[in-house]
Structures are given as C-alpha cells and as structure tokens.
C-alpha cells in the first residue's frame, strides 16, 4: 500500500474509532438520564391523581435535560450519518419517547404526536441527516407507555381511583386500533405489538371488575368499551 492510501485509511479508521468513543460517552449519559426518568415515573403507580402533576413537575427537568445530550449527539454525528450510528442510542431515545408520551397522557389525556415528541426532545429539522426521531423509535416508545398504563389501571384501583381505568381503556384502545392498521414487517415491532394485545385485555378486565361491581357510573363504563363512534 502506498503511504498516502495508508495514511488516509489510518485517519479514517481512527476518526471512526474516536467518534464511536465520543458517541458512547454521550449515550452513557443519555442512558443515565433515562434511567432516572424511569425511576421517577415508576412512582405514578403509588401516587394519587391529585399528586400526579407535581410528580411530573419533578420529572420534567430530567426529560428536558435529554435534549442537551441530543444536541451533543447532533454536533458529533457527521452529515448524512444518522443511520450509521442511530442504533447506539435508540434504546435511550425510546425510553425518552415513552416518558414524553406518558407525560402528555397524564397531563392532557391525549396522545403525543411524533412531531411534538421531536420538539420536546429538542430535535431540530436542520439536523435530520444526523439525529432525528424515526417512526420506529416513536412507536416503540408508545408501546412501552401502553405497557405501563395497563399496570396503572390496576394500581389506580388499589388507590381507590375507579375512573382512571376507564380513561386508560379508551385511550389505549384508540392506540391499539391505530397499530392494527399498520403493516408491521419489522420483527421486533411486530412482537412488541403482540404484547399490546395483553395490555388491552388486562385493562378490559379491570374495567369489567369496576363495572360489574358498579364502582363507576354505567355511562363512563360504557364509554370505555365504545371509543369509536359511528359504527354498526
């Protein structure tokens, strides 16, 4: 090999190796943040509805701090190399999506859109060739949220809140029927979609228990199983 070729290759491989180290550092940082988030959010299961807002208040700064890591990642990744490196941070990113989606549900009772999630995480459109939120990662985050909500339905009842399961039921069925429409070729996503079915069933059983025992008004109970309106 002539020395120029060699020197070039050398430099290329060294750069790659350095870059990987730097990304890993950021990802470690990202991971630590999302673990803290998960730790805080797991307290929703023992928190009464009225205290949920203040719990979210505690967690929100941690979520927002994720955007700092994302900025760092965006400045590290070379142009056009989003798809090369994204696997390194996708687990953390999915957890962050999960947190953002759970916040939105608990605060406003609605499903966060992919675009809003991007904004919350500080993604910028001009970086999209370096860092962005892919549909796949967004969907993974939603599934994690539903997994958590099926537990929340159970735990809300333990705390004496019989309305929450009904709200969750309506919300989750909507998401579930959205997922059912998608042509999921991707294996992991497909498998996790199967887990959604169990969540839906579990939530239905909670709604059943409170309806049967008339712990909620008939009307709200009926709403829980009747999310879509104009059907035969």
């Amino acid at each position, binding site marked *: 090999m002539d020395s120029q070729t060699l020197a070039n290759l050398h430099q290329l491989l060294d750069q790659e190796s350095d870059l990987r180290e730097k990304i890993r550092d950021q990802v470690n940082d990202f991971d630590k943040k999302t*673990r803290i988030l998960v730790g805080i959010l797991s307290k929703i299961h023992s928190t009464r509805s009225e205290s949920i807002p203040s719990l979210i208040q505690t967690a929100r700064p941690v979520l927002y701090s994720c955007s700092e890591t994302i900025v760092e990642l965006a400045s590290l990744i070379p142009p056009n190399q989003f798809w090369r490196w994204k696997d390194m941070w996708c687990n953390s990113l999915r957890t962050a999506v999960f947190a953002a989606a759970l916040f939105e549900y608990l605060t406003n009772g609605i499903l966060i859109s992919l675009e809003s999630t991007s904004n919350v995480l500080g993604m910028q459109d001009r970086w999209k060739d370096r860092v962005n939120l892919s549909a796949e990662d967004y969907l993974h985050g939603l599934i994690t949220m539903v997994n958590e909500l099926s537990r929340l339905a159970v735990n809300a009842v333990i705390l004496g809140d019989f309305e929450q399961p009904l709200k969750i039921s309506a919300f989750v069925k909507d998401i579930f029927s959205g997922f059912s429409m998608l042509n999921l070729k991707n294996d992991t996503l497909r498998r996790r979609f199967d887990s959604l079915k169990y969540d839906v069933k579990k939530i239905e059983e909670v709604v059943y228990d409170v309806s049967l025992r008339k*712990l909620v008004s008939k009307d709200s109970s009926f709403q829980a199983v009747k999310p879509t309106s104009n059907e035969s």
Partner: protein
Amino acid sequence: MSMSSSIHNQFLLFRDLLDDYHDRRERLIKASRDITNISKKTIFLLHRLALEAQDASARVDASKIGLKKLTEVQELYADMRDELAGDQYWRYERQVSPGLQEYIEALSFAHFLEHGGLITYEQVQATLCGADGIAFFPLTISDYLLGVSDLTGELMRFAISGFGRPGGRTRALETCIFVRNCKSDFERFTPYVWELHKKQVVTAQSLSKIEDAAYTAVVRTSEFDLPAEMLDDIVNQTVLI
C-alpha cells in the same frame, strides 16, 4: 531431552502455581455450592416460619431463627478467609459471587421480616467480618445489588402465600410498596451493573403479581360499604363455623 535447569525450575514453579490455582478454585467452587444450598434452605425455612407467624413479633422470631441458620454460611466464609486474602479475592470473584448473592438474598429476607426494610450494604458487609472486625473479603456493590434484587422474587411468594391469612391483604399492600420502591431505586444503578437489567425484568414481573393480588383484594372489598377489617372478620367467622 536436556533442558537448561533454570528453565526447568521455572516451569516446575509454574506447574505448582497453576496446580495451586486450580485446586483453590475447586475448593472455592465447592464451598460456594454449599453456601448456595444453606441459603436456599434458609429461604424456605423463613417462608415456613413467616407463614405461621401471626404478628410482627412472631416474624422477628422467625427472622432470628433464619439468621442463626445463616451463621453456618458465615463460618464457611471465615474458613475461606485465607484463600481470599489480599489480592486473591478478585481472582476468584467469579467462583465466589453466585453463592454470595444467594446468601445476601437469604440475609435480606430475614432482615425484611424483622425490620420491614432493606438491609444496607454496610449491614451485609458487617456479617462478613471476623471477630477482629476485619472483612473476610471486600463486598462488591454489584453482588450487594444483585443479591437484594433477588429478594423481590421471594417477597412476591411471601405476599401471595400470605394472602388468605389474617392481615395478609394489608401485608400484600405493604410488600407491594416496598418492592415498587426497590424497583424504582435500583433503576438508576442499571447503567453501572449490567446484570441488574435482567434482574429488574424479574422484579417487574414479581411486582406485577403482587399488584394483581393487592388489586383483587381492593376490588372485592370495595363492593361493600364496610371497612376492610370488618369484612375480614365476617369471612373468618363464616369459615370457622
């Protein structure tokens, strides 16, 4: 085949070193198996006693009996002390860890029965010291976390088994909160201790089972306009008739 005698002697020394290493490793593996067995038996013993225990003081007694049984493990560690002295512990960590984690699981179960809380790192280390107060070997945070993480599985069994006993429903609720806090607290350690990830998955499953049990209790109680204790009493009377 002539070999220079210095080379010969050097390799003779290596032979002894390697043989010694392998022999010691074997002894530690065997001791570790024994420790695992005693710890597992202690856990069964604790379940047995805790199930029969009607009140807090009976649970303290149960804990005491379990802790006594665990002194057998402590004696084994005292015997291993010399094998693990100085820099040697780290050489055999992989052989020692599994038994140690099982011991910590049993120890933390006994501790939970007595105090209703989580044994601390320092308290575990304190049980692994000689009369001179010197540790038999350094306790890693990783072994501590992995050992106490296994406790959640036993607490799930404890909660489910005790469900039909007097006060079982209340205890299931308490255990539920304790295990949920464990899971929440351990979460931030997962980036540091790799195997903790898998243990957290098991903890999540156990927690879910305890939650389901607590849920069942609440749902049934909610149907009636009477306090839970009064309902319990009614049930107990019916059963006794």
